[in-house]
């Protein structure tokens, strides 16, 4: 019996131009890029200027990879 199933909507998935944003931090609101920065703090603060009433948790931060390889392990 399914008590609860939470499905995230596909419309909220951003399409990111790799050549434009590679290596940058971007801030997303409603699945769209609304701000960018060199760091997450900068991207977040830039997004907050545009959406001052948004709660912190409503601004989603994404680090766009520099390269296409990103697998990590502890040495």
């Amino acid at each position, binding site marked *: *019996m*399914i*008590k*609860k*199933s*939470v*499905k*995230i*909507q*596909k419309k909220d*998935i*951003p*399409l*990111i*131009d*790799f*050549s434009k944003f590679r*290596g940058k*931090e971007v801030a*997303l609101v409603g699945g769209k890029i609304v701000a960018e920065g*060199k*760091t*997450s*703090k*900068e991207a*977040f603060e830039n997004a907050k200027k545009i959406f001052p009433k948004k*709660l*912190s*948790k*409503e*601004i*989603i*931060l*994404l*680090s*766009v*990879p*520099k*390269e296409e*390889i*990103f*697998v*990590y*392990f*502890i*040495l």
Partner: protein
Amino acid sequence: MRKYVFPYGFRLSLKEKKIISFPAIAVSLIKKDSKEEFSFLVLIDSGAEVSLFTKSDSQLLGIPLDKGEKIEIGSASGDKFSAFLHPVILKIGDERFKIKVAFSEKDNVPRILGRNPAFSYFFIIFDNKNRNTIFIPRKDKAFEKLIYQ
């Protein structure tokens, strides 16, 4: 049975209009003794031992980076760097866990949801065909019973 179905989290458009998508989800981090939540899109990486965030993320949360336990991280590309483990509240869907995550000494690293200990709280199914990742909380014993009986 409670479950969370996350479509593959972000898509990158590459050269020649090729688009690749990743199993990534939005998670929130909350600093201990704080109520402010910050949200991040992280790659779900079963190959990674720990969850990794950036130096700037620690500043955003107000965590003094170098006060944590220092660990060394290596990547498949040969890159090596230090990171510091800190306790935080990690939120996935409505589920909250107090775990340690690593914050890198530098900023240009991808955020990763690694195995320890985040994966221990869920059964995680990669439905690659439908581009979904399904998180089933372990605290609900129904799924565990189903697969192990």
